[in-house]
Structure formats: structure tokens, C-alpha cells
């Protein structure tokens, strides 16, 4: 993973001396320490490292390509490089001054950003210990809503395309065929070849309510809820955004909840995730609750400005 072109051979011989390396590395570490913890060292000294400059330039150029900037910095003229360093120094100095003056207080953007970074710091990446059966069952019961399998429908349909036939003719053709289908007790597979080519599917086998609604519209699926499943009774015409449909609904299963055994892996994963988030939240809550809170001026009775002043 070494970067190309970072070999030492091109350096003059005195720069290849290990003592010089020691001193340079020591100096860099010292400087880096100063950059990371400026106050602990010398708050009035600004160290400009390559990484800091790259990061800075990325935001300036809005070009989040580390390697591009890394290379671009090498290609800058001395004057351009100095200008970049000056700009960085200007920003760093003014930033520190602003912090020292407390100007970060009361700014919502700064507040939110700092909170986000703190939350990240408390994100727990360790896997929690194995979860017991009872604990898992408790979780499953509590969040059973998340595991409900949606209602599913099995039906076939004959479609009459209004774009092709016009609305009146499509409806008329559907009505006529409906009588024939029911008189002759045409079965499920009888829909093949009848009517017009369906836009999406001819047969919907164990499809969810959402899926059918996405294909044929909310109205059609709502109608299906009022149809008695049957292997020979066709129903319709039902309207969709695309035309008229004759439907043979052979089964409709209500929404149901699988046993824990059937979905244990998924529940376990969700539990793990929830615990992770919970741990983070707890740690954050601990921070929050370590503060003493004093609420003033919210009680309508104390809306009077005088009493608020007294509290203060």
C-alpha cells in the first residue's frame, strides 16, 4: 500500500542519515501533536501539515478526491502554495480566535455538527454477547409488528386495454366476456390468450398487496378484498389506470405473523442492531442526565418578565 514515487533514493546523502531521520520524525511528531492538541502545547502556534492542507483544499475546491489534491499540491507554483498556506493559516487563526471568544455558542449549525461527531464517537462497533432465547422471544413479541407477513393474493385476470380500444368498447367487451366466462366456468388457465396483453403480468401468484397495487392500482386491490375466493367465479369488470379487468381470485391469505423459529436469524440481527443503538443512546443519555436542568419561564403563570428575571 505504499504510494508510488515516495522512495528516498533521490534525497541528498546527508538527508539519508538516520540521525537526521530521527530528528525530522521527532520534529514532525512534535508538530503533529501540536496540531492535534494545540492548546496543550502552544495555542499561538499553527502547524500546517500536508494532510491538514489536503483536507482544507478539498473543502475549498469542493473536490473530494484525496489523491487529486495530493497531486495538485505538488504541482502548485511556489506562489500558489504560499497562497494556500496563507489561506489555511488565516482560517485556522481566526477559527481559534472565534472559539476563544466563544462564538461557537448559540449557532445551530455548529451545535448540530458537534453533536453528530459526538454520536459517532459513541457508536459501539463491538458485537454484543450471544443473546438468550428468552431475551430474543421478548424482543420478538415486543416488535412483532415488524415481522408480520403481508396479505397475499392469487388471481388471474383478463385485461381490456382502454388505450387500444377506448373506454366504452373496453368496458363493453369485458362485460360480454364476463357472462361467457361464468356460464362456461372457465378455469384459472383459461385467461391465457383472452383479452389484451397485460402490461405487467397475466397471473399473480401469491403476490403481496403492495405489489399488486403498484401494478394495477389501489382501487383494484381494494375491490379484491370484497371478492369471495373461488376457482370458477369470475368478477368484474374492475377498473385500473390502464383499462378494465375480469378477475378470478382463487385465494386470499390474510396478513400473518411467522413463529420465532421461522425467522430467528432476522430477529437476532435486528436485536443485535437495536442493542447497539440502545447502548449508544444509553451512553448519550448518561451524558444528558449528568446535567442538572433548570427550566424557567415556561409556566404560563410565570410569563411575567419580572419573575423570570428574579429566577436568574
Amino acid at each position, binding site marked *: 500500500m505504499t504510494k508510488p514515487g515516495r522512495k528516498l533514493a533521490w534525497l541528498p546523502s546527508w538527508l539519508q542519515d538516520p540521525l537526521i531521520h530521527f530528528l525530522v520524525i521527532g520534529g514532525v511528531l512534535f508538530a503533529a501533536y501540536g496540531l492535534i492538541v494545540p492548546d496543550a502545547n502552544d495555542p499561538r502556534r499553527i502547524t500546517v501539515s500536508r494532510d491538514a492542507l489536503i483536507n482544507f483544499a478539498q*473543502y475549498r475546491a*469542493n*473536490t473530494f*478526491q484525496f489523491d487529486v489534491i495530493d497531486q495538485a499540491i505538488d504541482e502548485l507554483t511556489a506562489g500558489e502554495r504560499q497562497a494556500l498556506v496563507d489561506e489555511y493559516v488565516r482560517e485556522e487563526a481566526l477559527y481559534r480566535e472565534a472559539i476563544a471568544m466563544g462564538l461557537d455558542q448559540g449557532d445551530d449549525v455548529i451545535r448540530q455538527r458537534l453533536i*453528530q461527531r459526538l454520536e459517532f464517537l459513541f457508536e459501539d462497533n463491538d458485537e454484543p454477547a450471544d443473546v438468550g432465547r428468552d431475551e430474543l422471544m421478548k424482543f420478538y413479541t415486543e416488535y412483532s409488528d415488524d415481522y408480520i407477513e403481508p396479505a397475499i393474493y392469487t388471481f388471474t385476470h383478463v385485461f381490456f386495454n382502454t388505450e387500444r380500444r377506448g373506454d366504452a368498447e373496453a368496458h363493453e367487451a369485458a362485460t360480454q366476456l364476463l357472462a361467457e366466462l361464468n356460464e362456461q366456468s372457465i378455469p384459472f388457465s383459461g385467461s391465457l390468450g383472452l383479452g389484451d396483453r397485460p402490461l405487467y*403480468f397475466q397471473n399473480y401468484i401469491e403476490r403481496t398487496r403492495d405489489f399488486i397495487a403498484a401494478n394495477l392500482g389501489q382501487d383494484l386491490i381494494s375491490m379484491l378484498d370484497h371478492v369471495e375466493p373461488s376457482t370458477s367465479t369470475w368478477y368484474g369488470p374492475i377498473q385500473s*389506470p390502464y383499462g378494465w379487468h375480469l378477475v378470478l381470485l382463487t385465494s386470499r391469505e390474510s396478513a400473518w405473523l411467522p413463529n420465532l423459529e421461522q425467522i430467528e436469524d432476522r430477529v437476532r440481527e435486528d436485536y443485535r442492531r437495536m442493542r447497539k443503538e440502545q447502548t449508544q443512546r444509553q451512553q448519550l443519555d448518561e451524558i444528558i442526565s449528568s446535567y442538572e436542568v433548570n427550566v424557567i419561564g415556561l409556566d404560563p403563570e410565570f410569563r411575567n418578565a419580572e419573575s423570570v428575571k428574579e429566577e436568574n
Partner: protein
Amino acid sequence: MMQIRKSYLLVSLTLVMCASARPVVGQERNLYWGDTHVHTSYSRDAFSAGNVNADPDMAYRFARGLPVVHPSLGNRVRLDRPLDFLVVADHTPFGSGAPVEGDRDTLEFQTAAWSLYADAAERNNDPGTFTALIGWEWTYTPGGQHLHRVVFTPADAETAKQFLPASPASTGVRPEDLWNWLEATSDRLGIDFVAIPHNSNLSGGRMFEMVDSDGRPISAEYARTRMRWEPLVEVLQIKGTSETHPFFSPEDEFADFELGYQRDGNIIHTRGDMTAPDPADYVRTALLRGLGIEEEVGVNPYKLGLQGATDTHTTLSDTDEDLFAGWLARLTGPANGPEALPVFGRVATWNSAAQGITGAWSTANTREALTASFKRKEVYATSGPRIQLRMFGGFEFETEDANARDIAAVGYGGGVPMGGDLAQAPSDSPVSLLIHAVKDPVGANLDRVQVIKGWLDDEGETHERIYDVVWAGARTAVNGKVPPIGSTVDVARATYDNTIGSAELSTVWVDPDFDPDERAFYYVRVLEIPTPRYSTYDAVALGLDPAEFTGQPPAIQERAFSSPIWYTP
């Protein structure tokens, strides 16, 4: 502002909630939808842009349709229609956002990060339901020229851990070096790879050149090696559309579509020396070049299938115009408010496009089957809508085949699907294409279907021509062009309706200019009726004038591009 965004998201979610992702069943293949290009906090640039904690696991979970907390907006979001497959493609080497202790520029760090990364894919891979392909991005950008490749493999995590993902630093900076690495790794471990070049629009004349990386004319060996590893191109993504440019296709009235950062010459680069559009930057010109090179050396290096992906850096793959929340965490809008949105430095955020996605005709939703569909280029690109598109090429399709109950049976029975080849026309019969396009079930109606043909004449010159082949409504072509369909977009309210356009368009098109002695390619472009652009939704949510606030067209015609079919004499 956060309040506005939340309610806006809620409304949008409710509007499109009624869908769920299930493959569309065809005769031999099912249609699966996926994104092959998502960056997470593991990418250095994503991390420094504020994506500090949205990891690969979150990318997969969001793509699977599970609720996640939005990393920048802080609200709970869920993809209304899950994806069927996803490639998380973080830049290698990984950055400080990978939750590993230590210096990121060490082998230990990279190995540990890669292991976590591969495990996230494995954990979320559910054959038959959701496919998590293990991949990454090989990123080389000399002087701002994008020579980027997404690489993915059907291999499982255990196998993937036997290599470290290639980067220009580890392979060498030429694409040829990447292909050598792919070949060596493939030989060593017995696994396959697919590399997909992208952002050719930002390559500064380098992506589809007439020469190799050392300036030598392209040889048959170069062409074969390139096609072995890079059979496709990402033609649509957030940073722009690479299909073509009005500069090269002045006759194409639909060429100026989401050109991204090139729109006002506002290109991401650092030195200010990016050149004007170059034929090597665009896919249509590359397809044309390929015909000429094949004539010269016998192999076509640019026989490219077309696919779409996002290249989002927010971890969340969202291409719906009414949901799209920017591509960099810091630039996510409009929650940040108007003053934070328009321009940061040189890159106007609004130039980003809420696109793209890949439709794959595959025998199954598994790593192996999907990779095979990419390899045979039986995939296509859309700018976001899930437009169902079939195209078959043959010599004997007849007009009534367009009305067949089972288009797939006719198509596979009498022709080759998109991505395929035709050769040596029998008795000089012209190429005929059987095309079937159906609107996104929860999206906008279709305006028209076009065939884009490119060919090489006997003088060695290349040509392109666009045919309107089937369209909605009673419009008559004028000078070979069907007039615009009009618009139902209400810009002030960011709405449209489906009172114009067709739900379904199908036809058999016979090439009226066919010459059995000329090399040619054909691909299909499907256009939707105009719908509001994401910038319009955002502006309206903020109570601002869309055109004035964003400088972008308020409405766009979303589209699908098929992979081409090639004809060889």
C-alpha cells in the same frame, strides 16, 4: 428547515409507498433492479465530505428496503421499492471512516477494513431475494481526468478475503495494469470480475481513446483484454450522462440530458486545464470508434453494454426525483436551507442528477446469475424509473410480433436479446428489432421509443442516425422527427399527471437504410413524458422559484437506454 424536509419526505414516501420490488417474470429471464456504485463512510472523499458513520452495512440495509436513520438528515427513511442487488463500491485504499484502529496507510488497516467490508456484503446477501455483490472502485484521476472503474466479483467473502482490492497504488496507474491484476487474481483464485468504467464524461479525452495508455494504436490484444474485463460502461450517474453530447450529436434534440458538471463547463478538476468535449469522453462516439477499430485490427475494444448506477457518496441509493437528497453528505438538501445549497466553491450541487439504475435480465437473483447477465450485456440503464424494456434483434421479425402475448417467447425464439450479435444477413434481409417498453408501474407514461443506429461506411467514415420508431398519441413525424409530446408539469407545485403519453409501447422496426456490408450497432432509447426534476421538488419545498434558485430545467424527460445489438457483415 428540518421540519420542511421531514414532512416533504413523508409526503413523498406516501406517494410511492405502494410499490415493492419483485422481478418481472419473462419467458426465460427475470428483470432485476440494482445499483452497482454506492460509496459509504469507508471512502476517503465521502468521509471528508461529512459521511462519517454510514457504513456498507447501512447501504445494503437501505437497498433491501429496511428502515435506516438518514446519516445527514437524522430522520428515519426507507426505500419505498427495495433494490434486488447492490454493489458497495468504495474507493480503495479505504479511508479513516472504516472503523479500524490505526493508520489507514498500512496493510493491517486495509486488510481489517476489507474483511469488515466483505462481511457486510456476506451478511446481507440473500440468494433469490437480494444479492450483495462484493466490489470496490479503482480510482485514478491524473490532472482531474477520471479514469475510474467499479470492479465487482461474484465471489463470496471468504474468497474475497484472499486478495486486497486493487488500487492504482497497488497495481500501477494504467487501466492495463488493473486488467493484469484482474487476470492474475482471477487465475490464482478461480474467480471472475467485471470492471465498469464510469464518468467518461469527465475523462478529459482519456476513456475511449484510439490508442492505449502508452500512446500506441490499439491492438487486437488490447481490444480483447479490455473486452474480457470491461464489457460495459456506466452511461448514467449522478455526475452526469455519458451517452452523448450536443457537440457530437447536434441533430439529436434529446442529447442535452443531465450532462452534469459539464453543463456550464463546471468540471471537477483542480488545474483548470480540462479540454472541450472529446470523442473519447462519450459512449456513442466510443461505440462508433469501436466499429472502425474492429475494421482495422479485427477486434472491437468498445463493444459496450450500457448500465446505470448512482455513484452516491451518502451510502443511500436513491434515484427518485422526489426523494433524492444529494450525493455528498454535506450537500444534502434542502434540509440545510437555501443559503447552504446552491454553490460550494466550483461545483454547483444542482448540476448533479438523480440517476441511475440498472435493469438486469437474469435467470436468477444470485451473484453468479447476475454477473452472467452483466457479462452477456443483457442489462440496461435508466435514469431512475423502472421502465421495463426488451429489445431483440433478428432478420425475420414481422409487424404483428409486436402484439404477441409473450414478446419474450417470440424474441428469444427468433432473435438475440440486447447485448447480442447479428452477422451475415441471410439473403441481405435487413435487421429487424422487436421492442417492448412498459412504463414504471408507479411512474410516468412513455413519450416515445427511438432506435439509435451507428455504422461504418465503405470509406471508413462513421455515422449516427436516430429513428423515432413508436410513440404515444396521434403525432405525425415532421422531417423524420416526431414533435414534442407537451408537458403536464405544474412547476409551481412540482406535480405532473399521466393524461399524456402511453403506458406501453411496442413495435417491430425494420432498418430502412440497412446495408449488409456495413458494420453497425443499434440501441434503444425510451423517453418518458416530462416530469419535475429533483431540484424543482426541493425548490418548491423551500418556497423558492425552481429555475431561478437552481439554474436547472424545472422538468426532465427520464429515459432508458438498452445495451446495443451489433451487426457484423
